[in-house]
């Protein structure tokens, strides 16, 4: 349809206002609040102890809060892991499924299944599966002869390894999403390119390297962007399975904000953390937009 030029009141007001009002009230205002509160010190309980402290919170975070740095590192581990493992597995699976295989659509549909299950449920399920007292893994692996493999549940109490268990679960959850992003990207590649290559005598592998992979440039951007945003907002798995432990080893920014904001009722401090997370998310998204040619059209 063509656009009809008019002023806001006469035309779109009726249509846009309802969504706008709710949006401004429940998103824009809290967003500004988050940034605003970061310059204060407050317990959130009564207005009496609201105190302006300027950049004090930020100073404390950057200079005196080792948990913040650990959390940031963990978020970056999730980002890295999401890109390296989740997207790569998604890409490989999408490529494998391009072949004329039996059960192709069924398999494709199945790989996405974890994505429709709540991360909370996934967290609890894996917590149970990894529970050494119940010993599901022992029973399962024992059946297929891998009984004496290292016990993953031990890794959860290992300060250095725990985060990788969580990452593995996150990848399990998300590779179907990434796969689908690549599946649709693959669909939009012009088949004539392949025909021309075949006529030039190119084999399957060459076709993939020289046609498929480069044509997916825009798709990489989408996949990486999504993976990054998920990784920045990761909350459920560390919150449920390890509660940020052992000893903050699996803390992420989201859980640390929760901790400081709600458990310790440090509204200002928590909001400063929240603002840092926000800036991080926006910057990463912007960088991805810029450097991967996303949105520039193909």
């Amino acid at each position: 349809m063509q656009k009809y030029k008019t002023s806001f009141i006469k035309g779109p007001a009726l249509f846009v206002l309802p969504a706008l009002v709710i949006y401004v009230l429940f998103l824009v205002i809290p967003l500004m609040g988050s940034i605003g509160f970061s310059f204060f010190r407050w317990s959130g309980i009564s207005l009496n102890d609201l105190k302006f402290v300027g950049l004090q919170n930020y100073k404390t975070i950057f200079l005196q809060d080792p948990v913040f740095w650990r959390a940031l590192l963990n978020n970056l581990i999730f980002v890295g892991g999401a890109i390296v493992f989740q997207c790569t597995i998604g890409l490989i699976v999408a490529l494998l499924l391009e072949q004329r295989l039996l059960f192709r659509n069924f398999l494709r549909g199945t790989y996405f299944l974890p994505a429709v299950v709540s991360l909370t449920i996934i967290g609890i399920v894996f917590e149970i599966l990894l529970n050494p007292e119940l010993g599901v893994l022992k029973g399962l692996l024992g059946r297929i002869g891998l009984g004496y493999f290292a016990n993953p549940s031990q890794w959860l109490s290992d300060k250095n390894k725990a985060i990788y268990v969580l990452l593995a679960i996150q990848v399990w959850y998300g590779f179907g999403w990434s796969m689908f992003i690549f599946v649709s990207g693959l669909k939009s590649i012009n088949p004539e390119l392949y025909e021309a290559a075949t006529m030039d005598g190119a084999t399957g592998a060459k076709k993939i390297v020289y046609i498929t992979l480069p044509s997916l440039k825009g798709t990489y951007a989408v996949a990486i962007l999504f993976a990054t945003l998920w990784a920045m907002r990761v909350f459920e798995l560390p919150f449920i399975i390890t509660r940020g432990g052992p000893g903050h080893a699996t803390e992420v920014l989201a859980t640390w904000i929760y901790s400081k904001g709600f458990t310790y009722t440090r509204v200002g401090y928590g909001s400063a953390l929240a603002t840092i997370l926000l800036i991080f998310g926006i910057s990463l998204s912007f960088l991805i937009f810029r450097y991967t040619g996303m949105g520039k059209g193909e």
Partner: protein
Amino acid sequence: MIVEERSIRSGLLKFTSYIILGILFVATIYPLFWTLMTSLKEYRLILKDPAALPSLSALTLHNYGIIWREGVSTFFFNSIFITVCTVIGTLFLSAMAGYGFARFKFRGSDALFLLFAMSLVVVAPSIMISEYLLLHFLHLLSTRIGIILLYWSGTAFGIIMTSNAFRGVPQDIIDTAHIDGCGEFTVFLRIAFPLIKPTLATITIFTLVWSWNTLIWPLLILQKLGQQTIIVALLGFLKGQYMVDWGCLTAGLSIGFLPMLVGYFFFQKYFVQGLTLGSMKG
């Protein structure tokens, strides 16, 4: 010779593909399958051999009966209520706004659109604390209406999709409707809205799944046990109550994911459509 080599290689590739895909399939399915399977077993059977498949005669709905009576029915209905309200509200708010953006050209429309779009990069934990304070201030904490209103602010995705979809509506249909005396809202509701059904389906699906599955907001906002969604209840009440009662716990978990699983099974077409629609924008 070359042909033989090629078909051996492609055969080997296919075989390897099947193996890889097969392993992935099992890894993907197993945790959920185990959860369902365990929920249908009796407690002592579970303890005896947790990874074993139960015989058909050993299957029981006993666990489901227990937890349903012990509160899961309430949590389940809360989830349904909140999800349905969220979906309907989000759908209409998004579609109306999308129509407004598609149909009218007005001063500040680009800026306004951008304002909505920016929420796509704002992650929930960033606004957790101030959102909580806002809802507290509005006396909307511990209310289901409060969380629904909060969810209705997530219209950005829908607005982007609907405004795009509405642009594809032919101008003559709209003009004809105006000539026939229809007001703008009638044109929207009776004519344009029904024309973008695939987009509406996509928005419905994503909003529905997200709303059912999400933890953060119900965790913060729905503080009374009687209002909680199944997801929050699983984390708090149910996990505490049935900590080592694996049968009941897995039954609760199953109730938490089965609706989404079943929905996905029946409406897979719309999921796929939505995913491929969305990522083609790149």
